[in-house]
């Protein structure tokens, strides 16, 4: 043990590092530092906005997406992000807070985005997820259905699907499901 300590002292001298200051105070956790880094590198286009209910808690925030092209143009979609202390080894939990008609988002707001689950890797960052979410509105994808009926509509009748999107966004009813009005 003594031997290890003297090696440690030598290493410290070589690195010319500071000795720790006496009393221990509050530390920044690895997850928080990483989220801080991801947020400070975030380059959001004008179609997306964040909102922090508590600015001191950066592990929990809301994201609003307002697509300016594609079938969902004119809508305003809200998502919550909940990040655990295990970030970035665990993906953030992302949910849509509105009931919307979308093949990759179910009526409870669960989102089928590969990098939120099976393809998440610690090298990915918040920006990748946000870009991924935006992409779901530009290119809804019928091959990864979470809302099976919407996916079926998209696959079999693209024009009909577009009409369904429009009427659901206006708060209308599609196949006995009433959706939330999400128009700006």
């Amino acid at each position, binding site marked *: 043990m003594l*031997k290890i300590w003297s090696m440690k002292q030598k290493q410290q001298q070589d690195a010319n590092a500071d000795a720790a200051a006496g009393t221990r105070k509050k530390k920044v956790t690895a997850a928080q530092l990483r989220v801080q880094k991801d947020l400070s590198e*975030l380059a959001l286009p004008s179609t997306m906005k964040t909102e922090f209910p508590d600015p001191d808690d950066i592990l929990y925030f809301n994201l609003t997406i307002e697509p300016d092209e594609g079938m969902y143009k004119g809508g305003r979609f809200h998502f919550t992000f909940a990040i655990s202390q*295990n970030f970035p080894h665990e993906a953030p939990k992302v949910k849509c807070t509105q009931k919307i008609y979308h093949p990759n988002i179910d009526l409870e707001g*669960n989102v089928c985005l590969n990098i939120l689950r099976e393809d998440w890797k610690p090298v990915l960052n918040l920006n990748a997820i946000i870009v991924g979410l935006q992409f779901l509105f530009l290119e809804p994808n019928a091959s990864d259905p979470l809302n099976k009926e919407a996916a079926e509509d998209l696959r079999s009748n693209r024009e009909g699907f577009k009409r369904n999107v429009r009427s659901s966004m206006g708060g209308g009813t599609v196949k006995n499901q009433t959706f939330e009005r999400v128009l700006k």
Partner: protein
Amino acid sequence: MSQPVMVSGTILAPSSTMATRWQYLDNVRRNSGPFTDPDVFDASEAAATNMEQINVFGAGGLGCEILKNLALSGFKKIHVIDMDTIDVSNLNRQFLFRQSDVGESKAEVAAKFVEKRVKGVSITPHNCKIQDKDEDFYMQFTLVICGLDSIEARRWINSTLVDLVDMNNPDSFKPLIDGGTEGFKGQSRVIYPTMTSCIECQLDMHAPRAAVPLCTLATIPRQPEHCIEWAHIMAWEQEKPFPKLDNDDPEHITWLYKKALARAAEFNITGVTYSLTQGVVKNIIPAIASTNAIIAASCCNEAFKIATNANPALGGEENYMMYSGNDSIYTYTFKHEKKDDCPVCGNMAKNLDVDPNLTLQEFIESLAARPEAQLKKPSIRAEGRTLYMQSPESLRLQTAPNLEKKVGDLVGNGDEIGVTDPSLGRVDFKFRLKFTSEFVKAETNGHAK
């Protein structure tokens, strides 16, 4: 396995006195060998009777083995922490427990058993989470051995031990020995906190838990596990039968099991059982008693060598031993390199002198000029407090009022801050603030905190 297995071996006559009990161990400990480091080797009687205080995390599959091995290797003062209670399914390999112990605390039963079996050892049980103990508690140990089943708990104790290291106090330095198994595979590693590669540096050695795409669960389940995951993730969220899912509550597991069973029937899938439900929900990894024994044995031998200096131990040059019994036997011992950008040990907080009477704005401007920082657009946070973020815009607006506040109003002397800046690339900074002067609180017309 139905045929009897023959076990042969010589059983020595039991020795009756305490003096002869440790004779074989003392031969190893008190006679220096060709690899013994003469600088630190101490063969004296005092060193032998003064085996250090050691802490064991986990009294499960590995923990039982570790406690038994330590006690039989002459360690005298051991603490054990485990928050779990004994389950019937543990009894096949966690040999310190009996049927009558089911429902009792693992730590308490294990401690009592080993104390009774091995005379002269004192084991203090703690029936709690490792996170419930503070730094003062961990300061009393010289060595820590982990036989944990979660990465989260490993990361926690790792960063706690790294933070504990104080150059002014040699006793703050506590080697960490970590064992882990999964089926026929396992690993032992020794970490010298802040000196060698830590658990956070080695996180990529853990394969992530394989996840199935949500849409597969929702639309085309193919395996019984898919039905259980669906019940766990989607049906539970939708129906919320109980306010919060408790993996240890049989009523909750039964609810999930019935949901999964109904869904499996709908898709013509067989194989959903109560125990599989429990396994999927709790992420239970198959444990093999002998793999636990191998890994625990290697961990305890390293503990013995580190404590006695009898022989070189894992930790310095090589620090990681992987064992795989999947395809015959393969082991490999290597040096896992320390990562410079490790968020726990690669990025130790540096001291930063600051006048607490500066405004945050002035402080940020000074960071740009300091040679050790040279930051153009720094964002700054303390634990639980966002001081100023340059991005995203909503957070910038929310934190901008802090710019006029005094540094001393926002953080305390000795607090740590995290500084990030897009110009830094992968690196970020942690600073421990040292106030260079007395903080003068603003008069009543100033900003209230």
